[in-house]
């Protein structure tokens, strides 16, 4: 029910049609990009544009209400030329996705009285190129490095596979300088930036598409640099270490996924958006072990290097959604400080 501006601009949704289980969408409209934190990062968005291909909701609020609101969701999507559809039984759609898995779809406007041949569109849908077979990360990464300064001597390089503003906000808030680099930046280039830590960001699609990044990470984890992976970044770490990933039937999305810390047995509510997961058995022969699991389906939610400061989580400690695992950023920073001492 909350977080649609964040979700729509989340690069991890690049190339996808997004549907919302909560039926009322757009109630508080779209706040302006000019609402930012002290480092100039917008507060209500995860990137500079709408990333989804299409949006499916049950009921759209055309007259939003909020002190910060600048425009309605409808106006914003219209300006960005992103199609959406309403009056859909999104619960029915959700159940279909739950049972049959994520599927391809078409959004099309028909003229009034136009005869619609559903069969024809079903066939057409089958012919759509599957976004998971393309390298979606290419579309959402950056072309050249961008630096963000918080006035500190520590520096974290963020490998941008489609990084969310939320991650950058969390690093900046902890007073580190951030250098955001394209996802296929070489190890040499990364090292030349003299990072105190490296963060591998979230991103869309099948992690195995990022072959070059995996290779780079393979070399990186042999070094002694504090490293943290988030979502896609977590999967890339596993692949780099020699593990494997697989596609979940319908993935984890939403703000209410319970994850258990295997060390402390504590359970945290997490915000999730991923269609792939790390294969548990494949980790056995690597230097990584499982640190978090999902309390419901027991899939892997976090991994860590058995003896180095390298870890990854499958969820989004930066939100949007539950914020109680922001402490992972604190831990990351703690490690960076300690290794630099």
């Amino acid at each position, binding site marked *: *029910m*909350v*977080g649609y*501006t*964040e979700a729509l601009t989340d690069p991890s949704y690049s190339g996808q049609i997004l549907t919302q*289980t*909560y*039926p*009322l969408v757009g*109630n*508080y409209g779209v*706040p302006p990009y000019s609402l930012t934190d002290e480092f100039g990062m917008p*507060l*209500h968005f995860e990137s500079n544009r709408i990333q989804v291909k299409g949006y499916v909701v*049950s*009921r759209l*609020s055309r*007259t*939003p*209400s*909020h*002190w*910060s609101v600048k425009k309605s969701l409808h106006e914003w999507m219209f300006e960005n030329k992103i199609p959406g559809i309403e009056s859909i*039984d*999104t*619960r*029915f759609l*959700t*159940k279909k996705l*739950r049972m049959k898995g994520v599927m391809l779809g078409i959004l099309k406007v028909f003229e009034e009285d136009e005869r619609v041949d559903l069969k024809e569109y079903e066939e057409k849908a089958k012919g759509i190129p599957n976004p998971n077979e393309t390298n979606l990360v290419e579309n959402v990464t950056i072309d050249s490095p961008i630096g963000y300064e918080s006035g500190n001597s520590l520096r974290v390089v963020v490998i941008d596979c489609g990084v969310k503003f939320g991650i950058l906000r969390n690093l900046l808030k902890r007073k580190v300088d951030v250098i955001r680099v394209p996802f296929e930046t070489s190890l040499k280039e990364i090292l030349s930036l003299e990072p105190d830590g490296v963060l591998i960001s979230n991103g869309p699609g099948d992690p195995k598409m990022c072959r070059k990044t995996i290779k780079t990470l393979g070399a990186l984890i042999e070094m002694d640099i504090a490293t943290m992976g988030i979502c896609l970044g977590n999967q890339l770490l596993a692949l780099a270490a020699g593990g494997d990933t697989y596609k979940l039937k319908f993935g984890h999305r*939403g*703000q*209410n*996924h*319970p994850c*258990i810390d295997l060390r402390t*047995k*504590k*359970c945290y*509510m997490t915000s999730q958006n991923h269609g792939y997961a790390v294969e548990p058995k494949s980790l056995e022969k690597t230097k990584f072990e499982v640190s978090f699991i999902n*309390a*419901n389906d027991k899939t892997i939610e976090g991994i860590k290097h058995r003896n180095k400061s390298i870890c990854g989580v499958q969820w989004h400690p930066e*939100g*949007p*959604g*539950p*914020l*109680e695992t922001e402490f992972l950023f604190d831990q990351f920073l703690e490690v960076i400080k300690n290794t630099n001492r």
Partner: protein
Amino acid sequence: MDSVYLLPITPEFVEKIIEKERPNGILLGFGGQTALNCGVELAEKGILEKYGVKVLGTSVEAIETCSNRDKFRETLLKNNVSIPISEKATSLEEAKKVADRIGYPVMVRVAYTLGGEGSGVARDDTELEEIVSRGLSRSRIRQVLVEEYLGKWKEIEYEVMRDKDDNCIIVCNMENFDPMGIHTGESIVVAPSQTLTNREYHILRMVSFKVIRALGIIGECNIQFALNPESEEYSVIEVNPRLSRSSALASKATGYPIAYIAAKLALGYTLPELMNKVTQVTTACFEPALDYCVVKIPRWDFRKFRRVKRRIGTQMQSVGEVMGIGRCFEEALQKAVRMLNVGRELTDVEDLSFDFRKIKYELENPSDLRIFYVVKALKEGMTVDQIHRLTGIDEWFLDRIKDIVDLEEEITKKKSYELIKDAKVMGFSDKKIGEMLGKTESEIREMRKKLNIIPAVKQIDTMAAEWPAKTNYLYLTYGGQEDDIDFKKKSRVIVLGSGTYCIGSSVEFDWCCVNYALSLKDKGFEAIMINYNPETVSTDFDVMDKLYFEELTLERVLDIVDKERPDSVVISVGGQIPNNLAVKLSKNGVKILGTDAEDIDRAEDRAKFSSLLDSLKLKQSPWSKLETIEQAKDFSEKIGYPVLIRPSYVLSGAAMNVAFNEKDLEDYIEKATYISKEHPVVISKFIENGREVEVDGVCNGKDVFIGAIIEHIENAGIHSGDATMSIPTLTISEEIKKKIREYTKKIATSLRIKGPFNIQYIVKNSEIYVIECNLRASRSMPFVSKVIGKNLMEISVDAMLGEKIPTGEIIPNHYGIKVPQFSFMRLYGADPTLGVEMVSTGEVACLGKTFSDAFLKSLIASGIDLPKAGNSVLVTIGRNKKEIIPIIKKLVDLGFFIYSTEHTGEFLEENGISNKKLYKVSESKKPNIRDYLVNKKIDLVINIPTITHNIDESEKILEDEYRIRRLAIEFGIPIFTSLEMIITFVDAISCNDGFSIKSLNEFQEGL
């Protein structure tokens, strides 16, 4: 339960139970503020320690931190949690100083009370004085809190759970439609929040965790926030360290069984160890995702009270609540308004004033009609912005209501059938659509079914369809295309629930529904419940085979019948709301289980029932249906005053009334109702000084089981819902009882009753008059079932299925006494006198080895501080003067000190009773009654009101009496207004020799 005690929840009684049972642990957070306060007192007095009883879940220290404002503030401020500026005060002078510092208006809260009792907003010194002096007397620790007033900020609630390992979750957040300034129990509440951004939602969520951790709560708590509508600034207003009305609502709104999980957490389980009861595979350590919208509306019953102001505010006055579920806010809201059962739908506002000044006043000064005035304002062309500025209600909600109003206007204007689907999605009923299109409800129903516009059945599953649900917690919506469940063939029976609580229909009927449905389940039927009251057990999703959280309207019940195709529908165990559907359902071809609709009509139609009684040669009070005032006067003259008047149309005030003379009759008919051919008035002889007797029983068409013959303590004339009841009877002779049994059997078998029934009689001078017969479960059946140890609902299932039932009657060798619970304190200005209209809002019952044992325990349970020898009694008598003398003498003998007013005082003096005279409230002389009551120098008030409805004649006397009663109520002093109750009470205290501490089980074993 292993053992149940029907005893007052006071430290004295609970200590005795602890002493007897020697429990290892005690739970304090599950019985509301009453239980919590009792628990804290037990701990403070060292009783828990003495018997080694461990407090499970949230500790007493944590409870005290929440209640003690100093500790509370200190704890939260230390943890960087924003709270309003506030200071405590223990005297009026202190309070004034604080108010001056903060600046008016200020919010005054009373420490340790229930439902905001005694609190209020003070705009100046005078208001402050009134609220503070009342509040101090109500507070257990004589403390009030004067606080910065955050009127018109958004009011947001979070339901938080925490286990012993510090895992925390939010079960639900809720947004009040009405902003700060109206108690959440008095607000329309929406779940989940609708107008919060992701940031706001999660800022408050993290603060909630900070708060529950700082306070050290284990289990559940409710946190109330005020959120600035212009920024992200917030304030924590209150924390309830216990299960609350809000947590019950949150449980129903989400499908997350908060009380069940909280109990497990109190026992030391952790959240990840527990299962989600809906999916039965996922963990309870998660946050429910809703894919629907929920709207709760409180139900008020101001109409029942004399002189009450209808304004709502910072203390609870509502008597019930309803919850509408829809795929959009509009649908949920319109459903909820119908569920209120107040005779109007959301857009039925024709009768409200269209005067702009009046509308403006109503919007600024909310009453129970506020939502309807919002609609009226929109219909009269007021803008959303204007209404927002007057009410503080968020524009988002107002815009949605405007959409509803606009659609209605469009359909009415265009007569467009194409918009029926839109209207259904927005929650309009067939009846309303019919009004717009000039068709009947059934025509619209037929038409839309042809167009395949039918609702879909959706599941509430806590996971927004992400995981399959194992339970059948269901609602219907037009915002969906597919049913979530399939309807497998099996013998199934639909039980209609009791709907909203209101005065006259409360938890008793829910008990009947639940017990009935459970017995059906035992017999192998699939039991399907339809009900919409979030406060009930019948709406627990795991009690029945299927629960439809839905309206009890003809339209909706037929929708469900269309889907489910049940064998039959039960309408007779949920009180008046389902009962009223009997004939309509039957006409629509629905099979009613139990008594035929035709026979129900024979009992309910006054003329038919009357001729039945004639044919059985049973006496009844003479009555007639009259169409003009002249006829009414002539008839009343003929049968003799006093007469009971039941109008068929009520303009204002109570529906029934008693006239003692012709002037009364005229006054009442002219002021409160009107009389015409279309709206006839029924007048019957009002039998004075008769004993009222009720029989609760079950009949299977042939055999009759008499549950109990109940006698009222008060003479006939007090509504049976307000009467104090005794089983067995007290003054009725064996001979009369024999006759009553005989009559009961005659009536039940003649009406071919199949199921539960209740017959009311008046006994006077050895004559028995039949008042009425209800062919349904009655309010007193749970009480009867507990006293006699036989469940009348179980027997009713057999009766309705035509099976054998026990015959005869169980006469207990103990006493069961039921006492009404009143809420006059909360109802601004309400006159606490009793009459033919019911005004009590609850009831208590205790069992005892003797009458006085049971009776006095019940009085204590209803919140009365029993006066003791040496205490002071204020006596003012308007009638029954002679009869009262021996009672007052007895009180003097028992060591009470008597105060009185001028006339009563002289009369007592003449009869040899010395007393001290106090001046009336209206006289400004001292010693004044007001000072004595305010300073609690009086421990009991005996006031027998002067009876007349002729205001002009004795306005001053009545006003004086009223002010005494009102002051007694506001300062928590027990008051008796009926002669019989006073006699019974004085007799009981004079012969009481201690209270028995016996469980219900022990009493029942003795039968």
